[in-house]
């Protein structure tokens, strides 16, 4: 009987590239509705875990359960249509498309009509297309980009691009959202705003959120549970205050500087 209150469960995920073990025995259980974090030094294998969960990498061993369903080895587009959306560490927008087109592509996965409906000029096609447009505008409004809807996305400032990526991910109607360093490159003000925003979308869209983040204020501020990776191995997990005081974590990742600040 699958555990109904866990959105995502991974069981001993391991992936090898050639001889190198990038991630070993990664096991997490993420409760529905929570915001949780995955931290670790650069190259610890965090993004690799994301890539396994979202289907970009096939784990060498282990299982991924999403809402109790085994999704191990599914292709990325199937994972997405099952309800898992993600953002990327190095923003990956459709840079020649306009802002609203980016979001509409996100919504495409829930669209019933397709190209031959468009060719036949069917009313059902036009109806759905304008509904998608409305939905996209609504999401753009939520991230504060509604005014820029027709701009080319490649020309947006950095912070706006990050928010657009979020809106695009939300457009796929996910129940589980993976954010890869959402605060990277943001100033303290923007970071503060982002924290509020992440909490806000969790309740508004009924989401469970897993995020990778280097900014400890964000991680400690909004995550309810944290896993720490180092060299592909989970060295600690727990509530923020437990992680904060965990000796192993301090050694491996936070370093002297953080200890001094605390």
């Amino acid at each position, binding site marked *: 009987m699958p555990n109904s209150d866990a959105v995502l469960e991974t069981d001993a995920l391991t992936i090898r590239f050639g001889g190198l073990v990038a991630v070993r025995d990664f096991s997490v259980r993420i409760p529905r509705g929570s915001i949780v974090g995955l931290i670790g030094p650069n190259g610890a294998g965090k993004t690799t875990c994301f890539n396994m969960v979202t289907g*970009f990498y096939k784990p060498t061993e282990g299982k991924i359960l999403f809402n109790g369903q085994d999704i191990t080895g599914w292709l990325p587009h199937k994972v997405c249509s099952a309800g898992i959306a993600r953002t*990327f560490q190095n923003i990956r927008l459709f840079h020649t498309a306009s802002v609203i087109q980016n979001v509409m592509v996100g919504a495409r*996965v829930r669209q019933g009509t397709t190209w031959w409906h468009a060719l036949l000029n069917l009313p059902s096609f036009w109806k759905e297309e304008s509904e998608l447009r409305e939905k996209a505008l609504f999401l753009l409004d939520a991230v504060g980009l509604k005014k820029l809807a027709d701009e080319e996305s490649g020309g947006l400032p950095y912070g706006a691009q990050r928010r657009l990526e979020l809106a695009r991910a939300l457009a796929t109607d996910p129940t589980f959202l993976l954010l890869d360093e959402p605060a990277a490159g943001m100033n303290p003000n923007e970071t503060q705003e982002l924290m509020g925003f992440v909490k806000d979308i969790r309740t508004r869209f009924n989401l469970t959120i897993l995020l990778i983040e280097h900014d400890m204020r964000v991680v400690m501020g909004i995550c309810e549970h944290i896993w720490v990776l180092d060299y592909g191995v989970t060295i600690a997990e727990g509530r923020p205050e437990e992680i904060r005081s965990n000796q192993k974590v301090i050694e491996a990742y936070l370093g002297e500087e953080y200890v001094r600040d605390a």
Partner: protein
Amino acid sequence: MDPKYKRNYAFNGIAVLLLVGALFWSRGNLDGYKIQIMNLIAVNIILALSLNLIYGFTGLFSLGHAGFMAIGAYTCSLLILPATYKQTMFLLQAPMWPFSVMHAPFFVAVIIAGLAAAFFGFLIGLPVLRLGGDYLGIATLGFAEIIRVLANNMPRVTNGALGLKGIPSYSNLWWNYGWCLLTLYVMVRLVRSNFGNALKAIRDDEVAARAMGINTFRYRLTSFTIGAFFAGVGGALLASLLTTIDPRMFIFTLTFNVLMIVVTGGLGSITGTILAGIVITVLLEWLRFVENPITFAGMTVPGVPGMRMVVFSLALLFIILFRHQGIMGRREFSWDWLFGLFRKRREA
């Protein structure tokens, strides 16, 4: 409905009427050679639009157009050639059933030609579209070459190296421009729909598109197959226009000409493709003069064979080196843009 839409529909209608008027006028007032050029313009636009869908909008660098055109041209020709005529033309070996007896009216033949090309596009796309970038280009080029070798070596279907002659010339301004408008309609509908957005997304960033739930392979295959369909249609119209086809016609140069139009017009610009289709077709015809002897003031300058393609390839190099976005880049001419321009003028 948005008044803007109403206005645009009205202007589209007017544009089509103007085109019809122009065609009527040219039938009465232009000589056969000029009409032939106008026909070639329409066919080239069809071919270039289909390549632009594949390469410009979906980002699949395909060099297989000559292959699809050959399939379309042979299919259509075999369908519209009378059965008795086929028996006498196939000198090497008698034509094989069902190619010996099949027959269809021109419109149906063109559609079947397109479907045949689309079928082959689907078949070849199934394996090769997993490849990216330049490898895809080479694989599709290989496909086109294989088709050509097959055409050369299947005398019971294609009449081998002798080719098909005396193909009924049903193809005329009405058919060609009719198909051209239909192609244009299909392209605009596709590209402007959310399906088109997804194609462009795959072109921009395939990884992100997959993460957004786009089954990129299926989209690529769909786009490639639709493109192949219209390449087949273009080949069919061309066969009926030229009334003679043989395997040598479908060498890589044919693909190169179409690629040239797409690159010149701008990858991912429909109106750019139309503009470039006109310019390049006229240019290619005009350049024939370079290869013919010119008599000027009693002196005869001998023509230089090969000069036409020298100029042509230099033009392509010039564009790719100095203006690689082509005439239009990714921009489109639109009524909104035109009226926006007028408004600005008035305000200024």
